[in-house]
């Protein structure tokens, strides 16, 4: 990752760019939230974004997924300016979960399937293949038994797995997570991070995650931030720090991980930074 404040890093300086942020500023009601932030996320990087309240972490993620427009500067996804980007199924986005209405009549399976209903599949009916993808994503997150439950009946940790399954159903190249473990007990947080870490190490995925959990971030991404910009700190683990073994079936490999965790066998801890 290259990060600079006040200089124009171009796309050429960032090979295999997944996310490119160039001189981005954002103001809300004439108040500056961030100014001149630039950075680049390369393929298979794991970026942890840390900052105090109001530092603009969520704002930055929302700009990256096109929900907000930067006041100045440009954001690219896979080399394409975000306003022209069309391949949204390459991106899995897990927003902060506070917006979920517990009374909403939807089953876990319906929520996970909804990850498929983007622009590309307009007017296309649900196929057998879609059902299989949903079953795979549910299996990968270990929530297949909950598939027919109403989403509001699940615990916070289970709901978070549902949203992660929804983000994974398209087999995305980039996973963007906004405070994925807020309101979840410590043990569930731990297993959640094991899964995330496993996916980063064994699958061809790039991660951009906002988190409050300094322990997890430091353990996996290093003690000190790789770079800073304003009130935002960027912790990073590059692709070359991870093993080069890519397993193809996520459901299968995560089931293996879960079995290890459940049988109490020793799993390499989160803090295994080389």
């Amino acid at each position, binding site marked *: 990752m290259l990060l600079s404040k006040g200089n124009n890093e171009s796309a050429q300086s960032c090979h295999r760019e997944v996310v490119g942020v160039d001189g981005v500023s954002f103001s809300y009601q004439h108040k500056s939230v961030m100014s001149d932030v630039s950075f680049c996320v390369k393929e298979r990087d794991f970026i942890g974004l840390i900052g105090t309240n109001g530092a603009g972490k969520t704002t930055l993620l929302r700009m990256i997924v*096109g929900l907000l427009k930067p006041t100045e500067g440009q954001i690219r996804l896979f080399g394409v300016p975000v306003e022209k980007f*069309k391949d949204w199924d390459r991106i899995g*986005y897990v927003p902060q979960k506070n917006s979920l209405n517990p009374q909403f009549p939807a089953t876990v399976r319906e929520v996970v399937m909804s990850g498929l209903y983007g622009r590309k599949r307009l*007017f296309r009916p*649900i196929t057998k293949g879609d059902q299989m993808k949903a079953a795979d994503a549910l299996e990968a997150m270990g929530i297949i038994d909950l598939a027919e439950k*109403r989403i509001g009946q699940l615990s916070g940790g289970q709901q978070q797995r549902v949203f992660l399954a929804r983000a994974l159903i398209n087999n995305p190249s980039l996973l963007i997570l906004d405070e994925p473990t807020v309101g979840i007990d410590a043990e569930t947080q731990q297993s959640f991070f094991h899964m995330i870490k496993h996916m980063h190490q064994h699958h061809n995925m790039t991660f951009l995650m906002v988190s409050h959990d300094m322990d997890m971030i430091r353990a996996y991404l290093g003690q000190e931030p790789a770079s800073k910009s304003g009130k935002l700190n960027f912790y990073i683990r590059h692709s070359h720090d991870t093993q080069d073994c890519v397993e193809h079936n996520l459901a299968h490999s995560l089931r293996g991980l879960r079995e290890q965790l459940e049988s109490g066998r020793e799993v390499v801890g989160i803090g295994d930074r080389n």
Partner: protein
Amino acid sequence: MEIVTSEFFQRALIGGVLIGITAPLMGLFLVLRRLSMIGDTLSHVAIAGVALGYIIGVYPIAAGLVFAIAASFAIEKLRKAYKTYAELSLAIIMSGGIALASLLFTMGRSFMDVNSYLFGSIYTLDSTDLYTIGGVTLVVLLVVGLQAKELFLLSFDEEAASVSGLPVRIYNVMISVLTALVISVAIKIVGALLVSALLTIPAACSLIIARSFKQSIMAVVIIGELAVIGGLMIAGVWNLAPGGTVVLLLIAILLVLLLFRRSLRLGG
């Protein structure tokens, strides 16, 4: 009982059955997106349109529709002006609609039956009305049938819909226009004051019993039909106001469901 076999009653029944499908369906999407009061607001503006239509000699349902669509856009504009107090826009537009309607009703009082707009006049449905209602039903069924999954995503999580590339603004406009359509045709059946009940109460019932989105779609239609058909029969036989009977029956169904909710949720 002979009222049930009379032609005007059968027309009423056909109109009622059609609106019993469309109003609860559109209402479900509004309720799930926490926009329950939009139906009430649009219907109050639509009666102003209906009254104007009568005065200037335009098909009243069409004039009501134009007013309802204009109101739904005005609501969106006002919501942006009062971002954090968005419900204020509904209060403003609703009172504007009633004010305008009261002016128009006074202007046309010599030849208009105000009660029939406020409380419906289902027994006066003519074949033009039935064709209009039939057309609206077809459009709503087509949209919901072809776009159910997109509408689900939009209702469940508008941000996720936006991130997955769904044209959220186009869908919002589409839902507003369809709601305006349904309300305009429903006014003649249950009346402007009661349209909102037909939109929201079936959805309120489905929230008690349905476990999935699919079930909630089926539940609103079944409950809507039960209330419309049952209500019209009761009203016909005992000579009661049809709109009011339908709505009271809906409320009775809701109360029963609330009483027995513990044992009712489909499949636990």
